[in-house]
């Protein structure tokens, strides 16, 4: 029983991180119809930067966010404005996949160059601390990671719902032509949308660095589940992605009990295939998803 509860709690904690990262992927897809393969590579890059920051300065890795979030935002804007916008609209979806894929390879290779392929882990004073809730053991770092993801996701949500920029962003996602007609500079908005997406990778990477080991090629283990999440949630829907992330994260965590870690991962892919067979537009996707 406590094992079940334990997995459930871990599932929620993991689901939070998935939700934040999937929201980022959804943003790229929403503003540009781009499947951003390099998202998880940037995630690992942020984890390395957090690790590097804390080993060099001796400060808490969380403080690296002050640098990585603006840096990633800037890189996102740059990527959209300089690279993605260069592609022909007719072949944008396919060519952007290849372009972001090549960026992922370059990042992986560079990380291997700079930090070698060995596994890295951040040593934290509070790394071993944990506490008990209803008989479930929860590591403090996992809780911090979850809180970080939850706060960022909430901030993103508020930004989308409450601010003028958020409105412009949503308009651009739903109907670019109409948004342009009412005077929204959709190119600029798309750039910022990309920046925001990449900023989620910065936050996610730092959260990841707190309690896991990481290595350059780890991003492949993240991109698959994240892709599955955005398809199940319905491409382009942020709430859909968040819900799917939670459900799948918990499912994975629960399945680890009978199946073990490796086989539990296949759950994402099975969910992906099942969704495409039964409901190809995803479970929360609107009109956007039908055409892609």
């Amino acid at each position, binding site marked *: 029983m406590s094992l079940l509860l334990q997995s459930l709690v871990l599932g929620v904690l993991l689901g939070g991180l998935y939700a934040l990262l999937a929201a980022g992927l959804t943003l790229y897809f929403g503003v540009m119809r781009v499947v951003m393969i390099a998202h998880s590579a940037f995630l690992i890059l942020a984890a390395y930067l957090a690790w590097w920051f804390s080993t060099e300065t001796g400060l808490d890795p969380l403080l690296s966010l002050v640098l990585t979030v603006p840096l990633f935002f800037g890189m996102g804007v740059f990527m959209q404005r300089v690279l993605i916008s260069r592609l022909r609209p007719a*072949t944008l979806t396919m060519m952007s996949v290849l*372009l972001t894929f090549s960026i992922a*390879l370059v990042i992986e290779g560079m990380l291997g160059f700079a930090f070698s392929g060995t596994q890295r882990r951040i040593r934290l004073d509070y790394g071993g601390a944990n506490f008990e809730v209803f008989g479930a053991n929860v590591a403090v770092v996992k809780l911090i990671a979850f809180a970080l993801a939850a706060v960022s996701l909430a901030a993103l949500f508020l930004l989308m719902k409450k601010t003028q920029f958020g409105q412009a962003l949503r308009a651009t996602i739903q109907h670019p032509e109409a948004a342009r007609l009412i005077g929204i500079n959709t190119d600029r908005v798309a750039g910022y949308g990309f920046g925001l997406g990449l900023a989620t990778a910065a936050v996610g990477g730092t959260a990841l660095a707190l309690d896991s080991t990481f290595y350059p090629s780890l991003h492949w283990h993240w991109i698959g589940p994240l892709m599955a999440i955005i*398809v199940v949630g319905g491409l382009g829907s942020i709430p859909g992605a968040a819900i799917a992330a939670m459900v799948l994260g918990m499912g994975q965590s629960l399945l680890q009990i009978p199946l073990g870690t490796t086989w539990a991962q*296949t759950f994402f892919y099975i969910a992906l295939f099942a969704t495409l067979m039964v409901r190809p537009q995803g479970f929360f996707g609107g009109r956007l998803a039908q055409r892609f």
Partner: protein
Amino acid sequence: MPSASDTTTVTSAATGDTTRRRGSMLLKAVALAVLAAGVLSFPSVAANPFILSVGVVIMSYAVLATSWNFVGGFTGYISLGHAAYSGLGGYATGLLVIHTGINPWLAMVLAGLVVAALAVPIGIASLRVRGASFVIVSIALVLILLLVFQSWGSFTGGSNGLRVPRPFGPEVLRPEQHERFFYLHALLLGVALLVWWLIDRSRFGTGLKAIREDEDKAQALGVPTFTYKLIAFVVSAFFTALGGGLYALWFGFLDPIFQFSILVGSYMVLMSLLGGIRSLFGPFLGAVIVGYAVEYFKNQYGDSQFHLVAMGLLLGLVVLFMPDGIIPAATNLVERFRPQKTSIREVSAADLAEQRRTAGPEAGQADQQARTDDGTDIPSTDTPTDTSVTEGARR
């Protein structure tokens, strides 16, 4: 129906055209013969067994890239996970030989059929909606297969790999093995190219290319787009699996890390894209260039992170600056310097739209008028009055 005068102009144009066409066909036949001779004589000119083995690897890449191009080139759907089918083909061949002891060549073909059958549900899941899902599934498939083949040790050999019995006995020495497999790969490549060519010139191929250009439009013209895409995809998976099976029989050892590798899938994409996905020999050319470069770097610098970076940069550059590939670019260059090739247009539609935007509506109208006049014989005498009428009515 064309009038008498129309027919005469058409035929006179057609005869000039036929001679040109015949000339280019002869040229093509010669080029093809030279290419075939070059490929087939490679084993005899290869300096040593190592070079010959590099040749086999490059031919294997050529088979895989050409197979990839059945779906990538015709429909424009980019699969990053074709390593799934080559890997499955390899494993299915190996496992069939080990567990049933059947003839290895038969096993290879059976493996191809099994993979083609598996590709049907995968294709149904990923091709019903547009590109994005297809790409996602293609990546997911490689990742899931890597997981399964690493974990399912009892059946697949797991991370320790799988030793595949060699089809030729121990009396056939290493260089001889390489030579035989070089020709076998060349044969498979020849078959794949032939099928690609046959599809390219068929109605089915025309439909597929229309899907690549504009899927909605193709469907509106009656092309059953989903079925077409699915068939192209299954054919592609079949040939990719054969390529994987042949490689497995040659190399004799399968490791999931290398079989179900995103990198192998992306090689196929890079090779095809670099050579030109719309050309028959594009993937082959790309395979020779990229395959050679990969083997060279591996030999010089070992299996380092460097070639990930190089691969990524090269792919990025091709996507950004040469998405059509080498062959179309080279053909354009030749066309430009060819004499007496009268171009039918001075300005393209895109240029025209640009001009119209910059020069204002009136100038644009006049410009287009002039354009249509020499293109199609429309009398322009009544233009001024007509313009004012339509302009008024459009308000």
